[in-house]
């Protein structure tokens, strides 16, 4: 319905909604809470009440189901997860009390872990659902198994190009990722991808664990050939129908868990909210309860850890009210059950950068065994798993978040000059392996295109079809990691050969099969020798001073020396355009046709351009000319007792015969003042120097003259488009201002300045 206001017809919509429609957020879909159809994070009438019945030393009932009605999941949990020595004690405890214990720094993690072994899925869900998001994050920080946080990268590309995989794996290693995961666009390329990433991950340092996500039997074979060191694709589900629809059972997956360990390969399972909903077998139960079942299953199977927190179901879960809180809650159950947790934050849950940043923050602050179970270290379009929450595009945002919160997100800034060296080395290493093993002969052009490329759209290298025969040959010729190590060494890559050998040697002792194991500085650390011992402020993980400096050392930081160096570059050029002659103390003017321009202490002395980049000579020239255009005269004085804009302006006005003065700082902030006004009650203020153009300074001069002539001009407005001036300029501004205040002399009299403009070449 269109309303009229008087004779004016109104459109039927407030335009703000159209603006909101255009924001990336509106690409996200939001589902109404609907427990009957599986769209509920925490509340559903179909969820069972927590409960346990024990008779004759056996479980007779669990969460409202009698033993003879147990489905496969109940049966597995009852037999393999529940510890009868603690079940009655834990189940008799008030859920509210357990919730409080989770956030009580005085209750040790070990005590809570002991109790978790007696909790049924419904009990675990009931307890953690009582915590708000902040409490969940805190409890997660206290309960995670290993003290030192880590992170995992995805390294893939849209062409399955081995040269690019090697280069990108080396980069991921340099950024500090503890694990690298690859997969492929074309499944038969798995072997080539595995070799390429294994070689790339051996550049620079050793210890990054590597996996190649592929079909279960193939993945295990690749592992046995020594190219991979861990796996995380063993999925479990929270309903029986989803499980069998996924073509597995708790026993088939439990068997596979033992099989991986028997080959010395680290393994974690995968589960996450939303998978049962996506598969259509949710039984109207909540996302959290179904995930609690998955996690109890995993502990029962004896797997050391889990990749959970939505994973492929995370984007769906995030559409539900409380969905993001649910993802945190399920991660908390994982660590409460003493599992290593690769805490999701992989599949991108939103098109909104604000939702993405908000999603990662609790994990960044709380820490996690692997904060992302796949940070896309490559551009979003090259991610063969689908775009991650964070991708190469957002790498520096993540690094800055670490620095902002002094939180160790597992990554270390990479100096620009090191990146090309690493890529060159990695491409040379994988090329040597391909040649040495007679698999392919990359050309110089292929290599060069990959080294500088940000993503596969820019490369002239292998296509998926060209990779397939390479991959087939690796598989069919039974090439193993030993062949690759020999090839590297033969071609002069001894360091990489040694690094690769060290990773394979991990499997002999099996130390890295323990919970939450990773390799740091050549040592296996895990929940055994690096247990999370948080017990309040000053305990638990803290960055060392060295680590803090690493995290802080992002690209392009400013300091005063840097500001002075950049100003010094302009000094000589300005000296050819303008000369400032101090001719003595400035007197109070008597001529009514003058406007005094009061410049700041460092103006043209140590600072030579405004924050908008205008030469100070140009700014003074347009001011002087604009005043002259109204038939008045500009007189310039240098104020030496203050650098404050208001007082520059007021002091200038008090020296001015007309009573009108202009105050201007070297950074370009300016004011028109009148001698009769209070210090901060100026006539016009030009506070946004970074967006103030020469035409605005001309308007400033023109209006100052108009005030001197007794007119009431329209004030000059410097239009802003809402730029975050503070974030863009304040660090520099504060440093510049310190240079100004450093020249202030208490009580120093203003100097009269004669300006000479020179027609120097620009």
């Amino acid at each position, binding site marked *: 319905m269109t309303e009229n206001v008087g004779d004016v017809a109104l459109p039927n919509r407030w335009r703000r909604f159209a603006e909101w429609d255009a924001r990336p957020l509106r690409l996200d879909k939001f589902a109404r809470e609907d427990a009957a159809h599986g769209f509920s994070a925490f509340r559903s009438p179909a969820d069972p009440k927590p409960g346990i019945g024990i008779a004759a030393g056996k479980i007779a009932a669990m969460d409202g189901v009698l033993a003879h009605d147990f489905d*496969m999941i109940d049966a597995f949990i009852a037999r393999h997860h529940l510890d009868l020595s603690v079940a009655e004690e834990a189940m008799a405890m008030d859920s509210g009390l357990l919730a409080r214990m989770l956030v009580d720094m005085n209750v040790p993690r070990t005590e809570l872990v002991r109790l978790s072994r007696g909790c049924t899925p419904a009990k675990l869900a009931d307890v953690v659902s009582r915590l708000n998001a902040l409490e969940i994050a805190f409890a997660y920080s206290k309960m995670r198994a290993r003290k030192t946080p880590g992170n995992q990268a995805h390294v893939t590309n849209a062409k399955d190009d081995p040269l690019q995989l090697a280069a990108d794996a080396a980069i991921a290693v340099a950024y500090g990722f503890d694990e690298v995961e690859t997969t492929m666009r074309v499944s038969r390329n798995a072997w080539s991808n595995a070799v390429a990433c294994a070689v790339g991950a051996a550049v620079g340092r050793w210890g990054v664990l590597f996996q190649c996500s592929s079909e279960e039997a193939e993945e295990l074979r690749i592992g046995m050939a020594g190219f991979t060191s861990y796996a995380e694709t063993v999925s479990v589900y929270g309903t029986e129908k989803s499980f069998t629809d996924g073509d597995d059972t708790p026993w088939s997956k439990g068997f596979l868990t033992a099989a991986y360990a*028997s080959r010395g390969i680290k393994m974690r399972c995968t589960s996450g909210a939303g998978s049962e909903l996506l598969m259509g077998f949710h039984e109207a139960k909540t996302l959290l309860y179904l995930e609690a079942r998955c996690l109890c299953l995993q*502990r029962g199977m004896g797997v050391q850890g889990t990749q959970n927190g939505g994973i492929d179901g995370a984007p769906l879960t995030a559409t539900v009210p409380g969905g993001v809180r649910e993802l945190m809650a399920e991660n908390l159950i994982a660590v409460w059950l003493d599992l290593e947790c690769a805490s999701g934050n992989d599949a991108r849950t939103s098109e909104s950068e604000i939702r993405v940043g908000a999603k990662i923050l609790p994990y960044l602050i709380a820490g996690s065994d692997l904060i992302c179970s796949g940070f896309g270290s490559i551009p979003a379009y090259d991610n063969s798993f689908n775009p991650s929450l964070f991708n190469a595009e957002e790498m520096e945002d993540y690094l800055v978040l670490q620095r902002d919160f002094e939180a160790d997100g597992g990554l270390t800034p990479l100096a620009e000059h090191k990146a090309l060296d690493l890529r060159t080395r990695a491409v040379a290493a994988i090329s040597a392996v391909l040649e040495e093993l007679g698999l392919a002969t990359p050309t110089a052009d292929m290599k060069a295109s990959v080294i500088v490329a940000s993503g596969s759209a820019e490369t002239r290298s292998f296509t998926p079809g060209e990779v397939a025969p390479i991959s087939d040959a690796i598989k069919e010729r039974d090439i193993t990691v030993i062949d690759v190590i020999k090839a590297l060494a033969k071609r002069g890559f001894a360091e990489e050969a*040694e690094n690769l050998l060290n990773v394979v040697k991990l*499997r002999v*002792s099996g*130390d890295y099969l323990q919970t939450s194991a990773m390799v740091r500085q050549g040592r296996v650390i895990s929940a055994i020798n690096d247990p999370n011992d948080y017990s309040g402020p000053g305990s638990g993980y803290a960055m060392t001073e060295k680590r803090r400096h690493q995290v802080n050392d992002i690209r392009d930081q400013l300091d005063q020396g840097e500001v002075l160096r950049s100003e010094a570059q302009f000094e000589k050029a300005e000296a050819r355009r303008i000369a400032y002659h101090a001719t003595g103390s400035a007197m109070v003017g008597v001529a009514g046709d003058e406007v005094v321009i009061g410049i700041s202490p460092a103006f043209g002395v140590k600072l030579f351009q405004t924050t908008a980049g205008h030469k100070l000579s140009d700014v003074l020239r347009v001011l002087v000319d604009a005043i002259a255009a109204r038939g008045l005269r500009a007189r310039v004085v240098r104020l030496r007792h203050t650098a404050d804009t208001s007082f520059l302006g007021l002091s200038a006005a008090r020296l001015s015969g007309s009573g009108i003065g202009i105050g201007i700082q070297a950074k370009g902030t300016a004011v028109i003042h009148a001698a009769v006004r209070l210090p901060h009650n100026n006539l016009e203020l030009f506070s946004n120097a970074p967006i103030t153009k020469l035409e605005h300074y001309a308007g400033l001069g023109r209006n100052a003259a108009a005030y001197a002539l007794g007119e009431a001009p329209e004030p000059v407005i410097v239009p802003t488009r809402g730029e975050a001036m503070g974030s863009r300029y304040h660090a520099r501004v504060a440093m510049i201002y310190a240079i100004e205040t450093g020249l202030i002399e208490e009580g120093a009299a203003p100097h009269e300045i004669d300006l000479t403009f020179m027609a120097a070449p620009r």
Partner: protein
Amino acid sequence: MSKLGVQDYPLAETRPGAIRGKRGMALQDITLASVLAGEVTMADLQITAKALHDQAEIAGDAGRATLALNFARAAELVDVPQELVMSTYELLRPGRAQCKQELHDRAALFRQQYSAPLIADFIVEAADIYDRRGLFTYRF
């Protein structure tokens, strides 16, 4: 010999001479030089049942009974050929076995031929549940 505990971890650091690959080569003897000399095979880079039992003891000492049990099951699989491992995994998937007896036969194979009682029990347990939950049906 007393059981290992968390203080013995990581074994590669506390007893590098005692850690050996499948052919008996000590971990400390596996070097780039010995690889290049052709002395190292993939078997030398394979975990042994002993190493898994050691890790099971450490996991048990850390209070992780289920993880320890998995390491013990894994120890039983160390010398089981890859094809049998994979075909057993396949057999445990829904609808692959057509009756309880197929799984019981496989369990017996593990128990008798590979001295793998834990794995055998695990398969028998699956057979009972699969029977009760109707998994021995043909899946299209």
